[in-house]
């Protein structure tokens, strides 16, 4: 294990890991979900085949749509390729570009991606795509405060809001893990992730129930490579959010401490393994709860907000 990788290679590997593993994690979740329902389910590698197939198809744009329609998926994909540079995907030490942005910076880039997808959906003039875009923005506005309070908790705990710092703090001792602020923030973040990735209490991930759709309704009018980018992008967004939850909050173990080829490889395997485990948990949740009515989503978000706010409260008296 004496082969030491140059730092820029490790940095690129972060992006490649996220981009490469993301469809697989999505595939695993739908496989597990199907197995739990007693169906055979698609192959785990099915999303890769879907994306490959879509890349070979022709792209059509609706009449009257502008360049925004086609630019949306490209810009969104660029954003999803940028965020893995900022978060601890493989290493415990901050990589050079990792200090370009903190958690909020990453959040801004993710919001930009979702904004571009929403704008390109609006540009189509198709009612379902517009419905999805409008809903995604409406509910996005109420999940934003939850994320802010989670960031406040992180900032109070570590004195900074760099994700690397929180991961290091969590690793430092057991008392950092059992403190209520940490548990509450992690739980709130998990609920936000369920919302952001369109999982069950909020939205059915598969199927054609247009009236309940939020995120899934937006790419209705896209086709060919553009649709492939949107699908791939949404899988990447899911894995990015899982990585933030796992490598920053819940289980920041198994990351490489040195840019040594062996430990980086181990970090890739452990990240994929942890994400697969989390995916199984999400699939179980998908099968155990009913989808909330659209107007009940505020209750779900209010619960997440409650957890995040309580996290800050417990810190206020110095006991969190």
């Amino acid at each position, binding site marked *: 294990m004496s082969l030491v990788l140059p730092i820029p290679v490790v940095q690129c590997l972060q992006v490649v890991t996220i981009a490469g593993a993301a469809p697989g994690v999505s595939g695993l979740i739908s496989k597990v979900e199907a197995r739990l329902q007693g169906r055979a389910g698609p192959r785990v590698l099915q999303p890769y085949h879907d994306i490959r197939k879509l890349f070979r198809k022709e792209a059509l744009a609706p009449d009257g749509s502008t360049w925004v329609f086609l630019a949306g998926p490209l810009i969104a994909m660029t954003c999803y390729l940028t965020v893995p540079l900022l978060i601890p995907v493989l290493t415990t030490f901050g990589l050079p570009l990792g200090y370009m942005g903190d958690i909020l910076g990453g959040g801004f880039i993710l919001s930009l991606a979702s904004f571009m997808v929403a704008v390109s959906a609006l540009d189509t003039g198709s009612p379902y795509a517009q419905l999805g875009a409008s809903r995604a923005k409406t509910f996005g506005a109420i999940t934003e405060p939850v994320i802010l309070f989670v960031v406040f908790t992180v900032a109070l705990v*570590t004195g900074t809001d760099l994700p690397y710092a929180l991961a290091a703090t969590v690793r430092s001792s057991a008392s950092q893990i059992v403190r209520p602020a940490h548990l509450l923030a992690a739980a709130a973040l998990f609920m936000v992730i369920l919302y952001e990735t369109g999982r069950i209490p909020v939205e059915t991930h598969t199927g054609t129930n247009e009236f309940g759709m939020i995120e899934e309704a937006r790419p209705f009018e896209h086709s060919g490579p553009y649709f492939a980018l949107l699908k791939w992008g949404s899988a990447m967004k899911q894995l990015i959010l899982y990585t933030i939850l796992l490598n920053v909050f819940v289980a920041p173990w198994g990351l490489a401490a040195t840019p040594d080829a062996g430990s980086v490889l181990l970090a890739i395997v452990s990240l994929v393994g942890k994400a697969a485990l989390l995916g199984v948990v999400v699939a179980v949740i998908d099968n155990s709860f009913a989808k909330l009515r659209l107007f009940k989503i*505020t209750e779900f978000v209010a619960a997440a907000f409650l957890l995040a706010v309580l996290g800050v409260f417990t810190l206020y*008296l110095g006991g969190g």
Partner: protein
Amino acid sequence: MSGITAATVAAPSVLSGGANVIAVGVLLAEFGMFRQALLRDQVRLYAAQSALISVLAVVVAATRHLPDLYVLAVLSFALKVVIVPIVLRRLLRGIGLTGEDARWSDIAGSHALSLASTVLIAIAVAAFGFFSVAALGIRSPVLPTTALAVSVAVTLVAFMLMIVRRDVISQAIGFLSLENGVSLTALVVAAGMPLILEVAFLFDLLVVAVVFGLLIRVHHGRAESMSTADLTSLRG
């Protein structure tokens, strides 16, 4: 992360962290009561909340060497987790707690406000509890101040529950869980309270449960519903 010198909130020890987590669990159970839609689940949530308090009492007893608290934990578990829920369930058996008739077991629509706004107001009320404890500067030798603040928040949120839900069962459970908040406060402030006092409180609670059960039965017998909104016609 060298070079970062900003003020941070240091982590409490594993013990106080764990105690705080249990206390926060009690508070979350209190918030959960806002949402429960069935009588049965409301009573179950109360039992779960009481069980958390017994666990906290055991933790304090074990770590602070207060053998009295073991007795208290066992007694409070027996009464609040086993007997009171059974008494309530028996008294409410005829009116749907067993789920024979869905009409009476459903208390979902008894909110005076929407659930999300209720939770937001309750967060504000809990915040008041937190900040007032901080302002009072009460310190406890056995448990961290955060647990005390949480217990005050539990008491205040229990009041909220009784105010915003217009069904008799939630109001009764609100009252009982208010007692849970008070006993959590007692545990934090004076872990070594005379056992006889605690026991007297616990048996009072049993009486309260019986009286509430009877009142709920009488109310249901007269009004044919679980809603207290029907009582407004009694105004002179």
